[in-house]
Structures are given as C-alpha cells and as structure tokens.
C-alpha cells in the first residue's frame, strides 16, 4: 500500500511532463535519440558572443554569400553556358537578329523575358560586389585590432584564401554572359597570361581551348563558378566558423573583459534573433538596391566581338587594383633576350601585386616573429595602441587605394578635365610615395592619441569650468575619468625593442640582427600604459582636480 502511494506522484510527474511538452517534446526526444543533438545544444545553445558593430562585417560577408547561393541557383535554371552561336530573338528589340553566343542570349532572356529574372540577376551581382567588399572590410577590422594574433593566425590565412576565392568567383561570374565588356576582360587575362615566361603561351592556349576567344571558355568558367569554387568556399567557411567556435570570439578592451573570459549575449535567444534578423536586413538591403539600381546592363554592351570597344571600360570594383597596377607601368618595359620576349610591363605587375597579397597573408607570422610573443590574445588592440602595425596598415591601404584609383584614370581625367598623362603620373607618385607618407602620419596620429589617453587617465577630462583659487590663480577643473572608462585606456600590451644578446655560443646571428632592427622600427617610439604609481602620484599632485567637482 505504501509503496504504491509513493510511486504514484512520480508517475504523475512523468505523465505531466509528456502532456506539457506535447508534440515539441516528443519530436525533440525522437531526434535526440537518433542524433544525440542535445549535446550540441548544451555546448552551443548558450555560447556567448560579444557585441560590437565591427563584428557584423564578417556576418555581412557570410550572409551575402548565402544570398549569392540562393540567387545563383535560380539563375542556373535558365543560363546556358554555351558559346554556340545563336541569333537573338528575344524581347529586347535593339539586339534582335544579331548573332551571339547562347550564353549571352540566355542572359538576355533572363533579363528581358523571365519575370523577376532581371531582379535575380541584379541581386546576384550586387550581392557579389557586397561579398567581396564585406570580406575586405572584415579583414581590415581584424588587422587593425590585432585579432590575427595567436591563436588565430591560421584563421587569418583561411580568411585570406576566402578573399582570393571571392575575387575569383567574381571574375568567373562576370565573364559568363559573354558580353562585350566581359569578353574584353577575358582578352586582358589572355594577354596577361601570354606575358608569363615559358608557360604563358601554352597556358592561354589550353585555357581557351585553342586560340582566343575559342568556344570553350564560358563552359569552363561555369564549372569553376558554380561547382569547384563554391565547394571550396563552403568548406573553408565551415572551417573558418569552426575556428571561431574553438577560439571563442575576441572582445574589445572594457571593464570586466579579460583574456580569460568572453562577455556578451548567448546564442539562444538573443544572438539567434539579432544575427538571424541581420541576415534578413542584409538580404533586404541587397534586394532594395537590386530593385532600384541597374548593374551590368549587358544589353547596352552587346555580344562579345574582338573589334569594338567603348571608352571608359571599368572592371568590377575588386579587380580594379590589379587593372590599375597595369595602367601605372611606364612605356616600353619589355625586352628580347636570346629569342625570348620578357614582358616586364606584365611581370612587374604580377610580381608586385603578388608580393603585396602574400605579405598580407603572412603578416601575422611576421609580427609574431618580431615581438616573440607566444601568449594567446583574446582582447583586441585599439588601433592607436599598436602604432606601427596601424601605420603599416595605413600604408597598405594607401598603396591599394592608389592602384584602385588608377583603374579609373580615364574617368577621372574626363570628369575633372585633366590630362590622362597627368592623372597617371600623379597616381604613380601616390603609389610609391603615398604609403610612406601614410605610414608616418598614421604613426604620429596613433602616438598622439595615446598621449591624449594618458592625459585623460592622469588628469581627467577638461570640463570647461574655470575656477579662481584663493591665491588669485585661475585653473580649469578637470573631471576625473571613472574607473571603468579608465580601464579601457590603460589595458594594452606594451613591447620594448629587442635587445640584441649573444646566444649560448656567444654569437649574434644575422636573423636576430634583422629581428632586432624590425623590433626597433616597431617599438622604438612607444607610449607606455599608465601605471598605478603614476596615477597615485598624479592625484597627489593635483588634489584640486579630483575634488573640483
């Protein structure tokens, strides 16, 4: 009798659970018993992500990629990746009866004969432009805040490869419609490849399946564009995000933020709502742009033909830096030696642009070698607190911007009524001298900002209140900074230039000498964070400043 009564409530409880859970509970139970997914929910469901607007840049990149996949899948249902010649017979009257490739003709049909087709094409193109831009800005954020430091160096490399792949996706997609503009783009690629010593002629021949333009290139680029490149990108994005989970997200310096914690909102429910909602906002903005602004109007260009071309041709923005670099080469950089042509006007561009992007990729390892810092870093640097790194970044941005501007040299010349030669010579100068100037300006600005931070920590903000002391002296009352704000200003890592010391054999190797030189270049001018004793002294010296309020 007693045993029955004690069991009853337990059974009731179990039944009650079932009732209150209902369908959701039993469905969850069904899935968990087959996938053990409750473990993943436990691990990830309340995972913390810190909040900051600059962390959204990577999200924009991810979401625009999803938009590209969705709109691109729609386009594949209509696009014909064939260079077979057809006579256009669609709704766009000016091109009626003109021979063109099936690729161009089907792109025309998507634009003029399928309802919503033009919209999807424009969503695809705008999202692609946004994708590369968002990756670029995301990389700048990572760079200037030092988020690439240990343990995230490899994730920087993965992200860098994604940036290159995004440009490759952009260029292959740009070439698919086989219109006049994209054909000229391919013509330039063909010319570039032919300029490569030993291999160039054959690589171009194989790529185009014979002589340029051939009948194969669109089909081949299509395979790359919709199969191979997206597959690699998806795999790398998965790795990139997996590393974000493994490392946990970085956070900006703030009171309570430490290298041992991560402060923010849990995935469920806040991040799910904010990040999920943000996907729809990005999608909505791209959709709005696509419904209001034309992009790549191939019907104005017409089908590809090697003979005509229009003035003011421009590549998509992300190829601009490479195209601009080609325009900056002075006349006559080519020579013949032993019956072979060396096209320096092409090789120099490939080498300089190649070295630039490889340096970007290797930067985390270079800086780690110079500092010798083996610690994990999860709290970001404010850019001013790493003056040399920020200055190098500013120099890199200036270099890139000069090359990029050069891609529009003709447009600038016509719009501002300048000579073509003047624009090119100016940009040649900014490409070479601009980075040096940018380096010095950025470094000095960083050091000045650091000094300002020190002032604020030691003496507070200028309040604008002038007080006359009993002795007749006028002083401005300084408002002390509160301890939370102060922490943001003083908590950064500080480095000293490397002191060269002989190793166990009593020698100083050449690598160490180089490292010491670089280290001096990095850390010779430095502003140390305010120490506790300095703060005590400052407050002791100026009692008026803290009691002034």
């Amino acid at each position, binding site marked *: 009798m007693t045993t029955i009564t004690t069991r009853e409530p337990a059974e009731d409880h179990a039944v009650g659970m079932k009732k209150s859970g209902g369908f959701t509970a039993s469905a969850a139970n069904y899935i968990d018993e087959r996938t053990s997914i409750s473990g993943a929910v436990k691990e990830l469901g*309340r995972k913390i992500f810190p909040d900051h607007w600059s962390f959204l840049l990577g999200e924009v990149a991810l979401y625009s990629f999803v938009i590209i996949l969705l709109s691109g899948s729609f386009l594949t249902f209509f696009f014909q990746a064939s260079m077979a010649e057809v006579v256009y017979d669609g709704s766009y009257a000016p091109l009626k009866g003109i021979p063109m490739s099936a690729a161009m003709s089907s792109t025309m049909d998507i634009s003029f004969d399928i309802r*919503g087709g033009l919209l999807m094409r424009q969503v695809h193109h705008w999202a692609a432009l946004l994708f590369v831009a968002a990756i670029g800005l995301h990389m700048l954020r990572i760079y200037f805040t030092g988020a690439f430091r240990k343990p995230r160096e490899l994730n920087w490399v993965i992200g860098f490869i994604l940036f290159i792949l995004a440009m490759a996706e952009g260029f292959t997609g740009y070439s698919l419609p086989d219109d006049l503009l994209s054909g000229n783009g391919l013509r330039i690629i063909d010319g570039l490849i032919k*300029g490569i010593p030993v291999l160039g002629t054959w690589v171009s021949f194989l790529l185009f399946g014979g002589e340029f333009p051939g009948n194969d290139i669109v089909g081949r680029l299509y395979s790359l564009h919709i199969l191979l490149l997206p597959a690699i990108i998806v795999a790398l994005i998965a790795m990139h995000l997996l590393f974000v989970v493994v490392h946990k997200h970085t956070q900006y310096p703030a009171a*309570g933020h430490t290298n041992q914690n991560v402060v923010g909102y849990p995935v469920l429910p806040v991040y799910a709502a904010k990040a999920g909602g943000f996907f729809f906002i990005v999608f909505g903005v791209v959709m709005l742009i696509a419904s209001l602004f034309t992009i790549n109007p191939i019907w104005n260009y017409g089908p590809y033909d090697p003979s005509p071309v229009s003035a003011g041709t421009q590549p998509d923005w992300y190829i601009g830096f490479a195209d601009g670099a*080609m325009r900056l080469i002075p006349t006559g950089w080519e020579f013949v030696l032993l019956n*072979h042509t060396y096209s320096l006007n092409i090789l120099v561009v490939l080498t300089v642009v190649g070295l630039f992007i490889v340096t970007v990729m290797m930067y985390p390892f270079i800086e780690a070698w110079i500092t010798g810092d083996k610690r994990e870093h999860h709290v970001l640097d404010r850019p001013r607190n790493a003056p040399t790194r920020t200055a190098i970044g500013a120099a890199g941005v200036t270099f890139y911007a000069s090359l990029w501007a050069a891609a529009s040299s003709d447009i600038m010349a016509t719009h501002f009524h300048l000579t073509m030669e003047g624009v090119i010579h100016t940009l040649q100068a900014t490409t070479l001298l601009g980075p040096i100037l940018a380096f010095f300006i950025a470094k000095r600005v960083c050091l000045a900002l650091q000094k300002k931070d020190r002032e604020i920590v030691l003496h507070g903000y200028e309040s604008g209140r002038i007080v006359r002391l009993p002795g007749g002296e006028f002083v401005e009352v300084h408002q002390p900074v509160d301890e939370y704000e102060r922490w943001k200003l003083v908590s950064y890592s500080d480095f000293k230039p490397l002191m060269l010391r002989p190793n166990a054999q009593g020698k100083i190797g050449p690598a160490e000498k180089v490292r010491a030189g670089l280290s001096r270049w990095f850390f010779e001018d430095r502003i140390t964070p305010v120490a506790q004793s300095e703060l005590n002294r400052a407050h002791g010296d100026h009692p008026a400043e803290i009691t002034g309020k």
Partner: protein
Amino acid sequence: MAKDDNGAEHVTAADSPGAQLATSAASTAVVTRDALVNPGFPPHRPRITDLDHKEERKAERAVFSLFYVSIVGSVFAIAAYMAFPIVAEDPGSVRLNNLFIGLGLSLALLAIGIGAVHWGKALMSDHEGVDERHPVRGTEPVRARAVEIFQQANEESGFGRRTLIRNSLIGALVVFPLPAVVLFRGLGPMDQNPVALLNGTMWKKGIRLTMDPSGTPIKAADVTLGSSFHVIPEGLSEMGHGRLEEKAKAAVLLIRMDPKDLIEEEGRKSWSYDGIVAYSKICTHVGCPVALYEQHTHHLLCPCHQSQFDVENHCKVIFGPAARPLPQLPIAVDAEGYLIAQSDFTEPVGPSFWERA
C-alpha cells in the same frame, strides 16, 4: 557554462597585465607589476522597456506589426509578379516588373529583419553572460595520449622502421597525380601549336580591306582625308567557324592622313597608299582593341589601359604601358580601285608572348 549575471569578481586579478603568464624568453612584451587593476563589470543599466511597462508593450506591438508588414510585402511581391507582366519589346515593362517585385521582397525581408533585431534588443533579456576561456592547446594528458597513439601506430605499422616501404609509398603518392596533369593537355586541340597560330593572321596578298562588320570592300577614293575605318579582311564576315578567333587577330584600323604628316621609314614607304595607312587594331599590351582615334593629334588610344600610339610615326607608343608599336599592314590598290593587302603582317599582332622574338 554561461552565467547570466555580471558578478565575476575573480576575473579582475587574472587580467592585470602583471598576471599575464608564459612570457617566453624571446618575447619583448613588457610585464609590469605596477599596472592598474581591472575594475570588473560596471553596474548594469536597465533599458526603458525594463522600467516602463508601456514602453515594453509598445516594443511588442512594433515587433509583431513588422512581422505582419512582412507578410504584406510577400503578398505584394506575388501580386506584382502577376500585375506587372513583361510585354514583348517594351523595356519599360521589364523595369516595372523588376521594381515592384523587388520592392515587395525588400519589404518582406527588411520587416522580418528589423522586427527580429528589435525583439532581440528591446524585449529579450539584456543581461550579458560570461564564458570562461581555456587555452586552445589540449591539456597535458590529452597531448601525451595523442603522442602515445602516434607512437603506437608507428610501432605497429613499422612506418618509421620499414623505410623501404615508407619511401616507396611516398614515391608512388608523388607520381600518381602526374597522369591527371597530362590529361589536361586535351584542353587545347592536339593538332595545333599556339606559337604557329600566333605568328600569322588571315591577311595575305590581294585580300581586300572591307568594312567591319558589313564586309563591304573599301575603295581608296572613298577614304576621305581625316577619316578612319574599322576594317576586317574580305570573307571574314561570312565565316561560320573560327570567325571571332580570326577577327581577334586580323582587325585593322584604316586612316587617311595628309601624306605630308606621315613620317615613314625608308623600307616602309610603299606600305601606305596616298596617305592611307592600315594598322593592327589589337593592342600590343594585352590585346584590347585600340579603337579610339583622335583626329587632331593623329593619336590612337586603347581604352583599357590608356596606351597611346602615334599614327604619324608608325604607331610608336607615346604613352601608357604598351611597349611595342602597332604592327602595320602593307596595303595597295587593285585594278578596280579597292584597297587590298600586300601581304600578311610582317610580325605577330597583339600582346607579347614568350616565343615571340
């Protein structure tokens, strides 16, 4: 793991720069014991929706209204699909179709997005959580076990011991992709050699110069002073197969100038006809068509990278990245007064390539 309150006092000590550990001998980081101490989290400030019930209700109304607006947007997009059909040969109808489907979808998407974010920011709990970090590297026992597993595998397989097996395997793995590389030779036609193809165009002695794209032959008398013509060889416009490939090499610009303005080399005086000169239109830089002719200066401009060529002076490069002048096509006039080629170009046209000399 996440804690929903901000009371993590123990974090402060761990973060003062003086407590940062594992500064290796090689590191130049400065570690000071005199650093300030992390004050811990500032006090939490409640939102207006936490304090004022009316504001909370307002936010709630805003969120569900936005979700309803989204439904309106989706329905509008479907209606627009039907209400704004594409009418053949009416580009305006395409514009309307694009605009209204797009606006409906934009509204549907933006309203969901803004609604969800507003929900997250104004109504969901705004207490920050804290996760602890652990070093990324595995713990010592885990690492030791990993090493042990590799050693055991090495022992059991003899990978390190049986070097002949191991090295022959590495050799096989290096060689096996080579057939795949060879297969790629098939990307280009087997019976063609690119170098031979690049060295010639379809121009030859007696071929008439015709207009691009119509293919009408050009009489020397029709080429007035100062005019320029885009030219293709006779027969190109009727070609079915390989038309664009031939055109990409054979396109020519025909220009008539005052013979007094032409500065001609001794050996090339016979290549022009009464001030009419013909030059390859394919840029010697990377192959764009050099299609822009400036009549006053007699300069040709390539619109891709702004190389400029001086027609008066055998199309020498006067600005821009191109290195070589545009090749000249020697021309003459046949019995009927039509312009013809004397021969093919005397050098390869277009961009430079390795085998060109």
